Structure formats: C-alpha cells, structure tokens
C-alpha cells in the first residue's frame, strides 16, 4: 500500500520544494551533502552572494558548506563549488559527521537572524533540521530540499530498531527482528525515521507487493 491508499497524505510526511531565498533572514548558510551541491550551483545563490559581496552593504551574508561524502551516486562537486562561489566561501568537510560537528559549534555562537538552506539525502536534511531545533531555531528558519538519496530510515514499531536505507514501501526486512516492514506515511522528525510495522500483521503470510520505491 502506498500513501495514497490511506486516503490522504499524512501531515508529518515531508514535502520538498526547491530552495528559495528567504529575505526575512540576515545570515544565509547553505549546507549540502553529495549531489545536494546542485542547489548551491543554481543561479540565485551565486548571484545573491556576489551581489551582496560587491555592494559591501551590511545586510545579507552567505556561506556554503559541503560534504561530498556518502552516496555512491553523488560525484564530488567541491572543486566546482570553489571555482564558482570562491574558495574562501566554501567549507569542505570529509564527512557528514564532520560538517554536523562544525555546525553544532557554529549554532552555539550564532546570533539570531540565521537561515539554513539544506540540500542532499533525506536523512542528512533532517539531521541538520533536528540540530537546528535543538538550538531553538524555528521550523520556518530551516529550508530543506531533497536531492540524491531518497532511501528512508524506518523505525520498527515491534522491536524499535531503526533500519537504514529502506527503498521499498513493502516487504523489506527489519534489521532488528527481520520481519517484513510496511512503511507508513508517518515521519518522525525526532527519530528521523518513518514508522514501520509488520507488513503481514493483519493477514499472516501475505506480504503486499511494493508499490513505490525510494532511491
């Protein structure tokens, strides 16, 4: 069963749109992982960053942080970013963890007026968003765009294990109890995971065929 089978899309499932400039902020910090760097290489971030740079006016400032890392599909876009945006403006990190630990320090000393623009795999987006929440940022101050790995983390309602990289909505085994999982259209921002339960719980032995894949 896909989400539609429930008759409606549940409110907790994230909907993604392209990152847009948020003029209500002052300091605009971009964070990307893997092919998420594509979002930084669009016209507007490049144009806005250079416009405010040249004008010398206080007001908006822009920073870019990138971890090539992770995904098998994503190519390393660090040199392209540094060429386009200026080497001094782009921070490159060896891993997601390294970038997150940098961000943690930065959020601890940041002033109000910060906006985050996050692009990359789904788990990365919500890892950043969760950290921002812990530092008291409002949800409207954090913008996210899914680019690249769309596989999902799934929290098993039975054994409470979180299974990484689930690409099917039905039948993939839980990494804890091994039961085939049905992924429900409920996403927890605290767990950074979808809710899963035994796919044949209602009708033992009969696991529905997958209808959607997330890669």
């Amino acid at each position, binding site marked *: 069963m896909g989400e539609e089978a429930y008759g409606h899309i549940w409110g907790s499932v994230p909907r993604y749109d392209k990152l847009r400039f948020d003029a209500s*902020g*002052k300091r605009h910090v971009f964070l990307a992982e893997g092919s998420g760097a594509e979002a930084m290489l669009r016209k507007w971030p490049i144009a806005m960053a250079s416009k405010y740079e040249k004008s010398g006016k206080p007001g908006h400032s822009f920073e870019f942080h990138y971890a090539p890392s992770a995904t098998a599909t994503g190519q390393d876009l660090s040199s392209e970013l540094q060429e386009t945006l200026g080497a001094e403006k782009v921070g490159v990190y060896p891993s997601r963890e390294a970038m997150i630990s940098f961000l943690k320090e930065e959020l601890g000393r*940041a002033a*109000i007026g910060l906006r985050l623009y996050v692009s990359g795999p789904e788990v990365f987006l919500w890892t950043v968003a969760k950290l921002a*929440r812990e530092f*008291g940022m409002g*949800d409207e101050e954090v913008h996210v765009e899914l680019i690249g790995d769309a596989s999902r983390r799934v929290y098993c309602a039975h054994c409470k294990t979180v299974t990484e990289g689930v690409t099917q909505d039905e039948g993939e085994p839980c990494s804890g109890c091994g039961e085939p999982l049905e992924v429900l259209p409920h996403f927890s921002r605290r767990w950074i995971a979808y809710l899963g339960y035994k796919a044949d719980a209602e009708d033992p032995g009969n696991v529905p065929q997958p209808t959607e894949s997330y890669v």
Partner: protein
Amino acid sequence: MSHELIKARVASIQPVNETTKMFTLAPERDVAFPPAFSPGSHIIVHVHDGERTYRNPYSLINTPSLTNFYEIAVRKEEDSRGGSIMLHEGVSEGDILELEPPQNFFSLDRTGRRHVLVADEIGISSILSHARHLLLYKQPFELHYVFSSETRAPFQQKLREEYGDLVSFYPEGEHTFLNEGVLQNILDSQPLGAHLYVCSPEPEFSESAIEIARGSGWSESHLHWEIFKSTGQESEPFTAALARSEKEIEVAAEFSLLEELENAGVDMSYMCRSGVCGECEAKVLEGEPNHRDSYLTEAEKEASEKIMTCVSRSRSEKLVLDL
C-alpha cells in the same frame, strides 16, 4: 454566553503609585482557585455598575506557582476603561468580586534559549509573571522597561530589588527606545533561539517593536506580543446597526463594541477580550471597521468583512453587523 465564574474576596488593595493599585484576590471561603496558571495568563474580572457589567482582562502578576491568591495591577486614568475606575473607586477590601479563571494568550515559549521581555508602561503587568517564572527556573532572560514618566512606571523599585542587572529602565520613553536604535541594539546581539515578548497598552508601540525585530532577522515563531486597549482618547462614538435583530446600538467612546452589545442583551461569544483569540468575531455588512486586534490578518483587515468586537471600533459613523 455564560462563563464559569469564581467568587473571590478582595484581600488587600495597595497603592503602587499615584495611578496604579495592586489588588490581591483570595478564594472565598472553601472554594479554591484552579491549581495552576501559566506565566502570561490573565483573568477577566466582572465589575457591576448599576445595570452594566464590565468584564475587564487583567494580567496576573504573582508567581505562577502560587495560586492561593491572585494579584492584579489596575491603572486608573482619564481614558482608562470603566471597570478600572470602578475597581479604584467602588471596591473596598473585603468585597466579593466575580472572575473568570485564568487563560493565556501570551505564554512563554519553553523551547526558547533566551527570553527578551520588553514592557511599555502598564504593559509591565503582562510581563511580571514571565519574569518571576524565568527567575525561579533559572532560565536566561532580560527585562527592558520603557516609560515616559515616573507615574507611568509602577514596580520600578521592586523590579530593581528582585532582578538587579537583569532589568534595564528607559525613562526617556518610547521614542528614544524605538527610533534611536536602543531596541535595535538589544535585538541584534541576541543568540539563536531567543524569543521576544512585547507588551504595551499602545498597539503602535508593539507594532513598531515587532517590526524592528523582523528587520533584524527575527522570525515569526520567535515574536510574541500583547496589546490591551479598546477604548481611550482616540476612541470616537459610533452606531452599530444589527441587521438580523433590527436594533441600533450607540457605542459610547468609553465602551467597547462588545460591551455595548452585551449591555443591549446580545448573546455574544468571547474569550480573551483583548483582540487575540478571535472568539467575538462579527460579520460586517456595511461600514468601515477600525481594526485594533492582532487576530485578523492584514488582508482580512483590508477586506473589512469581519470585526473583533472586543477591541475594534468604526471609522464610519455607522457599522452594520450581521447580528
């Protein structure tokens, strides 16, 4: 609409300064007050004056964990609401008052990493319970108190004693504070996750303060403000025509539209009586409302199809309502 009322005894009345008195209200006999209230709460006090009943909201200023009594600060001025004059002149210690239990439209955001409290004159009364709570729970905060004269600044001494360095006073008034960069400096240096709370009797003060915060990059979820004023010097009388019940009601300058409707026997629903909850909405069929609430969106205000009867008035001589 009937509301659950609690009977309370006026345990003491103490002058705070020339214009403000503090009323301490205690439960009558064995009837206890509700077990807790949250910082920022207010009660609605019913005061009878002949045929008329005033229902005025007053912020609770005592420590929220102490609920065997309620303290409210009441300012009396030429343009203050009828109920406040009645409380000053017609109520003595030992009298019984009726009140509606606490409700809160100005609560603290408990996820805040720092709380910046800004009070303009009697607006301090909405901020006091926040400050008490934050001090008690050792949460980071700062209090900024703006006023134009000593008589308009109750509790100064008390605040100095209780809060020391956490409180700053701005006796040069709102103009310097808002327009000469004072508030701007305060706001620019706040850490991520800070929340701003503004309370003033004047909508213009709160609006300017919030606008300055937005300009400094504060986002909506971190901004909180309360306004309480429905009548006053700038208020003009007008006529409210009720289309369905075919009645015409004269709204005097010193009464709110809601009060006049209630006085005329119209069964109005209400909650906050301060323009934030949306409960007392009426549909406008003709005429141009003078919106003073913080509930309707700018677009809704422009459309002039609805009015919050507790605080808003009329720009036209007559307002035709679907009541």
